[in-house]
């Protein structure tokens, strides 16, 4: 991996607690967070916003050829989740089998280990989503 750790540390509040942003002018919510409202542009008023972590599966795939650091989870499910508050994000689906997942399935955010690189010892954490019952 050529990435540094700095970019990970910088986003810990976002990755650990699903903290995104909201534009107080148009009420659009952003996750991943944006510091620039695409609609209001310079006139936007961006503030932090904590998402509930509730959402549904918009799309999903089962990954059999994982990148470095994800080998031990193989195969794993990656999904695009539509949060109840509006925005979509990309995350792993956990605590379930591929057959349990379908488009529209209700899910909620949980805090998990995302990546573990044996050679470098890097472990990074963040959000995954699991089915609601």
């Amino acid at each position: 991996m050529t990435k540094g750790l700095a970019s990970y540390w910088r986003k810990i509040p976002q990755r650990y607690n699903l903290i995104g942003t909201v534009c107080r002018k148009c009420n659009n919510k952003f996750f991943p967070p944006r510091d620039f409202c695409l609609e209001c542009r310079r006139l936007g008023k961006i503030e932090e916003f904590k998402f509930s972590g509730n959402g549904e599966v918009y799309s999903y795939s089962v990954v059999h050829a994982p990148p470095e650091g994800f080998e031990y989870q193989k195969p794993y499910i990656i999904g695009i989740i539509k949060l109840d508050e509006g925005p979509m994000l990309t995350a792993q689906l956990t605590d379930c089998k591929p057959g349990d997942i379908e488009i529209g399935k209700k899910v909620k955010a949980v805090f998990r280990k995302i990546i573990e690189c044996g050679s470098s010892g890097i472990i990074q954490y963040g959000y995954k989503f699991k089915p609601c019952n």
Partner: protein
Amino acid sequence: MTEKKVGIIGVGMTKFGEHWDMSYRDLVIGAGTKAIMDAGIEGKDINEIYVGSMSPGTLIGQEHIGALVADYVGLVGIGATRVEAACASGGLALRQAYLSVKSGRNDIVVAGGAEKMTDVPTPQAAVSLAGAGDEEWEAFNGATFPALYALMAQRHIYEYGTTLEQISEVSVKSHYNASLNPTAQFRFKVTLEQVMNSAPVAMPLRLLHCSPITDGAATIILASEEKTRELTDNPVWICASALSTDTLALHDRKSLSRTNAAVIAGRNAYAQAGITQEDIDFAEVHDCFSIAEIMAVEALGFCDFGEGGKITENGETGIDGRIPINTSGGLKAKGHPVGATGIAQAIEVALQLRGEAGERQVKDAEIGLTHNVGGSGATCAVHIFSR
């Protein structure tokens, strides 16, 4: 003011494949020399160079690719610029070269593309390619590049009822076409059953739905209308060059089953050329994964949204079909040396328009199109060519 035309006077490419014995520089020299010979010009006739390359920094530890190319093809001193837009780097190099001639500033300009992908282990190449998507919010969470296209495929299946058989027919066609193309990486046919039973990569996509890791370079030489008429009896003209963007990450888009940058770039290209999609005789589209070809033919208007699978299954996109797609074998079977792809697409179109496509020649080919995509669709370049 009458618009001046821009012509193609020379094309050249290496065979696509795994070239263990060739460096990036060797590839560039190979393709460049062939194109200059094809054009019948001297090196000193060339005014400027644009090169598309995605990730030489991570794949071969080398940046500063424009200067490297100018140096190794023996043109030290002239302007040389590398452009990058992930897998659309070649298409963007073509566009800059086209604009350089179109502006009247230069007479003869080279557009090249190259990628040397097999000097690093495949997982490392995969990490490089993940840089085409959103590193912070997609790749970080485990979304591989095939997974991004799988996420699109799932929505296409869900929204339109597209079948895995239809998606797999794209690969069958691509391999068949590549079997007729001497520069292709995979010159063998595959059956529908082989595609549908190949190793899972990112379900529903399997190995034979994915383009390979490839080494290769491609070069095209453009000239002003006067120079083109002076230098060749069989000119190919570029009628349109359009570029559009979409969000870097899939999850920020309104739809996953439509590629909006391609819709916009296609529409702008048709307008520039003063034609409609009906006038396109054949096209090379960016099938980094087989689902991408289905979404491309829809975005470009060759069929309605949701009908891409059907027209593939019906054979409408075959060499003798209504709208032949990827006669070269496409990225899937011709190979996908990322930075070279956009140029290689234009070369296939030029060969077809010149009537030099051999066994895979499209009959009465008059107008062709290329569609080159970066990442999961955040960049799309569309070019239109005519005889």
